[in-house]
Each structure stands twice: as structure tokens, then as C-alpha cells.
């Protein structure tokens, strides 16, 4: 099956892209790497009438460390982030998450912004962004606004972005010293969408007391899910079995995974708890060095 007909535009500048988007209205759809969009178009699960290809906007492809904030242009290929030594040095969680997206060949084409805007609840980048307390810069003809990851994901495959807007940049506040992270997922087969994914970022003082922690899960809700209770339970404490048990209770309360042909809701819930313990443990161990 091949996609139905559509019109195609390849703007040379962001301004041009924004103009095209405005003209197209609800019929318009941005294509960047296309690694999520083209499969669903080939299967005719999506049929945008007008594709605006932003692959020509090279100004949107960059990785910068400014004011202790990691800034990544939306068009940056996932493989570029994967190969960036700077990212590996300053944002291990992102580096670890990236390697688990699809395969080498899809990361060569897939972009940072594309995966985040696609907003699959089990995808790696939305989860990493949420865990790292990142935000996205959204540009329209009228304004540039910044939305925190926590507010960006609305529901399954749906974000705060409007049809006339483009996600232009991803920003991530950088780790402090003595911080640790972990990103783990379980998929039916390597490289497939995760059944459940978990990510954790944590800072710890010299005594092993947790000073800050963010824990999030993918694949257990319609959006990547921040387990807010984890912060309350763990901050000011050393990690223990008892506390982890409390966190998994919160995970159980807040998650509502669905059943599909790959896994039942119960199994996903079980994995959510197992992965929660795994990422907490690993992040803690790494933070303590």
C-alpha cells in the first residue's frame, strides 16, 4: 500500500515554512525525518493533504551547550546526538535513551523534534525530555513560546503544538555534579517500540542523601508519565527497598496501561514496577559514583 496523494512543499527558510503552514491550515503536516510519519502514511493510517518538508532548514540542526543548558535544533538527526561526545559528557540520560530508539538506520534519518512531536507514549525521546525536565521551543508566525515537557504532551499522539506552529528547539537543563541517571526499557524484540520504558535522573549529596529526583515512565499511559510522588518519597532520603516499594505503589496508582496483542495491561504494570526499581537503583548507584 502506498500513500494517497498529497501536495509537497520544501521551504528554504523557517519563515517560508511558517507561511506554508498557515496557508495549509489543518491540511498541513510537517515532515522531518519521516521515520514515524511515512510508515503510517504507507499503511494509510494517516493521509495529510499537504506535506511541508523542513529538511532544507539546516539552521534547525545543531547541538549547543549554552548557559548550562543543552539546546538541540529540531532537525538534528538522532544519530548526530548519539555520536555527540558533548551530549555523552553532559547528558548521559539522553545519550542512553537515544541508542534505544529504533535502529541505526532509522536514527540516521529520524530527528529529535520529529520523535517528540509524534508523541508516542512509549517512545524514548518524549520520556527522556520529561525526565530531564526539558522544554520545547515552539515557533509560529506570531510568536516563539516555550513549553515545559510536563505541559507539552496532551494525550496519545497529541501535543500542545498547533497546526500553524513548528517545534524548533529542544532545551534540557544540564546535570549537576553528583547526579546519576538510568534509562531502561523492555520491548518484545530489540528496536521495537517499548512495552514499557522507565527513566530516572537523580542528584545525591556526599552522604548518599537524594537531593533531587525525577522518575518517568513510558507505555503506561496515553502520555509519558512523570511519577511526581517519587520526588516526595525519595528527596532527603537514602534509597532503600522500602522507599522503592513506596514509589512502585505510586506507579501502580498513577499508571493505567492498556492491553494489546504484545502485552496485557497487567504485564505492563508489572514491568513498570520492575523497571522503576531498576532505574532508581542504577541512577542512585551512578550518582553515588
Amino acid at each position, binding site marked *: 500500500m502506498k500513500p494517497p496523494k498529497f501536495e509537497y512543499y520544501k521551504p528554504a527558510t523557517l519563515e517560508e515554512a511558517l507561511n506554508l503552514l498557515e496557508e495549509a491550515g489543518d491540511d498541513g503536516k510537517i515532515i522531518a525525518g519521516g521515520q514515524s510519519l511515512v510508515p503510517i502514511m504507507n499503511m494509510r493510517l494517516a493521509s495529510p493533504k499537504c506535506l511541508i518538508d523542513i529538511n532544507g532548514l539546516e539552521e534547525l540542526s545543531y547541538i549547543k551547550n549554552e548557559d548550562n543548558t543543552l539546546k538541540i535544533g529540531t532537525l538534528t538527526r538522532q544519530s548526530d546526538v548519539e555520536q555527540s561526545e558533548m551530549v555523552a559528557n553532559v547528558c548521559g540520560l539522553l545519550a542512553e535513551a537515544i541508542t534505544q530508539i529504533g535502529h541505526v538506520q532509522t536514527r540516521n534519518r529520524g530527528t529529535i523534534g520529529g520523535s517528540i512531536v509524534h508523541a508516542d507514549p512509549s517512545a524514548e525521546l518524549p520520556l527522556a525530555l520529561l525526565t530531564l525536565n526539558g522544554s520545547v521551543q515552539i515557533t509560529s508566525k506570531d510568536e516563539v513560546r516555550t513549553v515545559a515537557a510536563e505541559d507539552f504532551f496532551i494525550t496519545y499522539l497529541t501535543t500542545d503544538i498547533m497546526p500553524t506552529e513548528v517545534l524548533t528547539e529542544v532545551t534540557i537543563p544540564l546535570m549537576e555534579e553528583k547526579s546519576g541517571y538510568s534509562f531502561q526499557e523492555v520491548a518484545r524484540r530489540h528496536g521495537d517500540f517499548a512495552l514499557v520504558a522507565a527513566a530516572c535522573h537523580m542528584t545525591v549529596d556526599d552522604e548518599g542523601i537524594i537531593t533531587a529526583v525525577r522518575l518517568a515512565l513510558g507505555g503506561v499511559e496515553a502520555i509519558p508519565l512523570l511519577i511526581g510522588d517519587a520526588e516526595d518519597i525519595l528527596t532527603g532520603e537514602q534509597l532503600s*527497598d522500602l522507599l522503592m516499594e513506596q514509589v512502585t505503589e505510586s506507579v501502580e496508582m498513577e499508571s493505567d496501561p492498556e492491553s494489546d496483542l504484545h502485552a*496485557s495491561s497487567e504485564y505492563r504494570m508489572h514491568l513498570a514496577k520492575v523497571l522503576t526499581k531498576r532505574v532508581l537503583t542504577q541512577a542512585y548507584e551512578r550518582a553515588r559514583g
Partner: protein
Amino acid sequence: MAKKIRPDGKEKVTGRLKYLTDLAFSNMLYGKILRSPYPHARILSISTDKARQLPGVQAVITHKDVPGLNGFGIVTPDQPVLCKDIVRYVGDAVAAVAADSVETATRALELIHVQYAPLPVLDSPEKALEEGAPLLHPNGNVLHRAGFQKGDIESEFAKCAAIVEETYHVPRQLHAYMETEGGVIVPEKDGSLTVYVGTQHGFKDRFQLARILGMPEEHIRVVSSPMGGSFGGKDELNIQPYGALLALSTGKPVKIHQTRQESIRSSIKRHPMKITMKTGIDQDGRLRAHQTTIVADTGAYATLGPAILDFAVEHTSGPYMIPAVDTKGISVFTNNGVSGEFRGFGGNQVTFALEGQIDRLAAAIGMDSVEMRRLNIRREHDLGPLGQQIAETNGALDVLQSAAAVYAEKKPSSQNQDRWKRTGTGMAITMHGGGLGFGRMDPAGGRLSLKEDGKIEISFGFEEAGQGILAVIETITTEQLGCAKEDISIMIGDTSLVPSSGSTTASRGTSMVWHSLQRLKKPFLQKLLTRAARKTGTKEGQLSIGPGGIWENGECRLSFRELASEQAPIVISTQFDFPVSPDPIDSAHFLYTYSGVVAQVEVDLLTGRINVTELHQSLSAGPVVNEMGYLGQIEGGGVMALGYTLMEDVIMADGHYVTENLDSYLIPGIKDVPFNLQVKAVESLPAEDDYGPRGVGEIGTIAVAPAIANAIYDAVGLRVSQLPVKPETVLKSTEERGVLHGSQSSNSGGN
């Protein structure tokens, strides 16, 4: 063992090889097939007017346009080419279109209006067998019954110290050949038709197409090779009839290449089966009674369903000598996808059940499972499983010994270093019949020619699907004749150019090539030498065949080109039948191969995930012809079976496919494959054996699932009775039995 490379390797790594779906012809049209949206419905009307009016559409065909028999099926042509009144599954074809592009053809399908009245859907054999269930075919919903009885089952059960009864469920497996069905059908100027579509038996396709098209077979040429994989799946007709009808109706070449989704919807699959086995063992560890019921979901149409059930029945007691056997099998029509030919042919399903029984029985009487197998295994002179004489070899014991040696090394299973993981080892053995079996037409044959250009042409009616028949032909021919590979040319897969050799199925190819050469070699060489003697004026006795030509005293006297020049080609043909048992027992096999498999798994107690870490396969199939080809068949077969065991299942709900594509139907990727993959060939045959090398196309897939299942039991104590083994099942079982708590200690969540 010669380590010879494949003759088709170079063309494949350069992309120069033209698969039949790569072909293009001028004025070529593209065909699409409209299939039923309902698993079971009455067709009220079909309107094709709008589709016909779409610019670019050149033909729209329905049942009215089938000139000959509107049906296909290798044995029973019960599947309509184009349905008229009733559709019986979602792969049933109702219309087909030829247009100037794939897009136009796709659009035209949307414009064909078919009115259906849905009928009750029989989505399981149980429903289909219910009293009052609608009849899917004139003779009812039972495609075939088969059975085998020997001994007094009840009195043997009475002698048993332990009896194990279990019901095993095995899934619908997709062949998942990388190249989906397709090719081009070309109407020739002389009114004949050339069908460039991959299949495993070109002559059979030609026979079936002639019947459908109402055309003499001689007017149809089937070019059937090469293929991007088949594994049994392209044995039955698939898109050929539609391409042929469209090509004839438009007078233009028509290409059809199914998308993966179309392929999954319409292709045959491995039979899902429900197998209940009740097996008894006496206190000395001797198997005494073995009672089996097999219920196979054969889907909407017959294809080779009956033969597959017969095969399953024959292999129900495997390589064991059991005094009382009572097997009953039933193959049932449903509104599910059609089940049919697939590597292993019913053996995989029953072997999974049987070898599960063996391990359970050994545990029940507290006996070592290897010892128990040894005690019950068939010996060289024992009769075959249906009481027939078979080619005598010690293969069963050979592979058991070989596997047992590996198994002993792996035992006892050690606690994994990671305390959240458990390691386990399991083994299984099997025997597998080659050829089609007694009472079935199973002709073979080949031809050797010295062509005018000096090439020795060896031809067979076989197809290259990746299995390596070309390498087998090259190796056997050069070894038997004594010439070099540069001296020969191989001709296969074209009904206009090759002799009939029977089907490229049932592990026949290697065996039949060898047998053909045994028959062809002597008269062919004799003719060459006689001519050479005449040409050189040397005595025949002093000449021999060697690389490049005719040799005398260590020198090449005459090249094949010189030998061939200015004279008529030398042609020698042979026709014979696949060897069968002297005992006239229907469907019984004669040439068997044997395998012993040892698998090691690592089970993650926290996620239930199973990782196969080692897979050792020992085979007895006579001498190895081509080492790399042999390895490839066994390793590849093993990994395919690993998928069958752990992840593969074409799920259907209410007669509709739930798994529609390769994103939801999972086949093993590299990370699912054991790091340690070992193949050991036990090549010895009795001195008096004159059946040569046996084919190994199927044997590598048979005993892997039970070996993995037994390893899972060893690791975590779960008795597997259903494939694929899902992590959830493992987890549930370990949780229920407290395996996890046994290993839980003070702190963290592990990792």
C-alpha cells in the same frame, strides 16, 4: 567436506540477480486483487462498472472471466480463483484489476462494489465441529481424518507406572519469506503464456494454470526461480491465476507483487494444532502406550492439509519404539486463513508435544531423560513409525548420543551469576521423513547434456529459493563427473527448458540430485569417452574425465569444447521415483533424517523474558554435500524455530488477521539469536546404504521448540504446553510457584 561457495553468491551481493518480482516489460500493467472483507459471507452482487471507467484501468475480472476451472489446490482444487457466491476467509479473491500503475489499480479496487450478506464465522475447529454449524464445503467441515493404531492401548496403559496427559497448543506460523509473492505474466505473440512467478514446483503450477485458463499445458511456460525465500509457502498457487487471467484479457504483461499486508492476508501458514497426548511409561522406563488426538485448524481450503495431517500422525511417536500407539487426527475447515505447506510439514507440531511428554514422563518416574530416551529409541533394524520398513540407519541413536554429550556438559544447570536470572538446559530429538510418502506420486528426474558450446549442462525441475540447490547441484555434479565447476552450466526452474524433477519440497532436492547423478553418470561418461576415444584415436580405457576435458596420463588431451564441436549434443535423461518403503502403507516415509537438539536458556525472573543463549544441533542425514549450505539450513532452520517457540504467532480474531504486518508479527532479529550456535553432522551411514545424502531443508526446524521448552522447565520449573512462550506466562508461573521469592534477598530491585 568441501567448503564450496554458492554459485549464485556473486549475483546476489552485487544486486545483479533478477528476482522474478524485479522483472519489467514494456507496456507492462500492474495487477491488484480484491479480497473479501468478511471471513464468511454470501456474495449478493458484484459491480465493476465504476472501476472499469477509471482512466488507466485496462481490465477488471470476476468469476465470470475464468474460462476453465474456477478453482485451485494442489490436490483438491476447492479454492475458487474468483469467488462467485460465497467467501470463506478474508483472503478469498472476488475481483482483480489491471491498470497502468499500482496506484490506479489500488484506486480501482476501491471502486468495485460488492454486496455481501455476512454469515456466521467459524473461527475455531471446535465451532466448526459443533452440531448445526454451517457447512463450509459440500462434504462438511472435516477436511481429513487420519489415524494409526498398534498394540492394545488399554492393556499397555495398565502396565504403566506413570501416565502423563497434556494438551499442547501450537500457533499459526508465517513463513515470512522476505520476498512476498509476485512476478510478471507475459502473453506471448504466439498465444502462449509465460509465467515468471516463484513457486516450488513449476510443472505443478503449469498443470493448475492450464486447468484454470482452459489452455493446453504446452502453451504455458513457468519460470519459477529464483525466489527470495519460500519455506513451503510458495508451494501452492498464489497470485499466478490472477496475473494470468489479466494478462490474457489485456494482451499485455501484468505484474503483481503483493505488499506484506496482502501477503499475510492471503498466504498459507503453518497449521495451528491442538494436540492431546496421553503417554504411559513402566517402572523400568519403557514407554508402553501413547495415545494422541490432533485437531488441526486447516482454514478455509484444503491445499495439502490432508498430507500434513498424515505426516503429523506418522511422526507422533517420533524415534521411539512404543508397543501400543493410538493416534487420531482431524483436520477441520474454518473461516480462518488457509493452513498449508511449511518446512517441517506437521512434524514440528507433534514433536513439540511428544518431546514435552518424554521429559514429563522421565520426571514422573524420576529417571534421567537422556537415559529414558536411550532406552526407548529405535535401532537400526527397527521398523518405521507406521510399521513400515525404512532405510536402515542408526541415525536416531547417533544424534541422541551426540546431543547427550553436549547435554551432559551443560548439566547440571547452574545458578546464574545474576540472581534475578536462571539458566536451564533442555534437549529434544526427532526423526523426519523425506519425500512425499508411499502412495503419492513422487517422480524425480534430471538431465545431463554436453552442449555444442562445450558446457556440460545439468538440468532439474527444481527451484532456488535460497536453500542452496544450485550449490548442491554444482557440488554433486562436479564430484560425480570429475569435472570442474567452470565446465558445467546449471539449468533449473523453467518448464520450457528443464525435465520434471518433482517438487522442490519435502527435503527432496539434495537427495534427488544425488540419485539422478547416480543414474546419469555412467551412461553420460561412457558416451563422452567413446566420442573422445574416436576423436583422439586413443583407447577408451586410457581416458578419463577431468577438469576442463578428457584426460590421459595426467594431461588434458581434449577440452570439452573440442569434444563437443561439430557434433550433436550428448544428452542423457533419467526419470525415477523417490524411494519408498516396500511395505504398502499409505503416506509412510522411507528415508528419514534425525536430529538431536540441546538448547540453553536464560530466564529473567523479573520480566519473564527468555533468552536462548546456546543452540546445539546434531544431525544425521548422510554425508554433507555442501558444508556451508548444510550449516545455513540447520542454523537458519533453528532460528526460524526459535521464533516459533518464543515470538511468532499470526493472531486471528473472529476470522480477521490481528497481526497484519512485520511490525506486529515478530520474527527473530540478530539480538534474539543465540551467541553460541553449533551444528554437528553425524555423516555415517551403514555400509550397505545406497541412498546417499538426504535433504536437510526441514530437519533443522523440528526439535528446537521442545528443546527450548525443556530448557525453560529446567530453568524455572514451568512446563510449557503452549507456543509461543510469552514472558507473561513465564512470569505468572514463577510468581505462582514463588520462584522469585526464593531468590529475593535484602536490598535492591536488582538489574
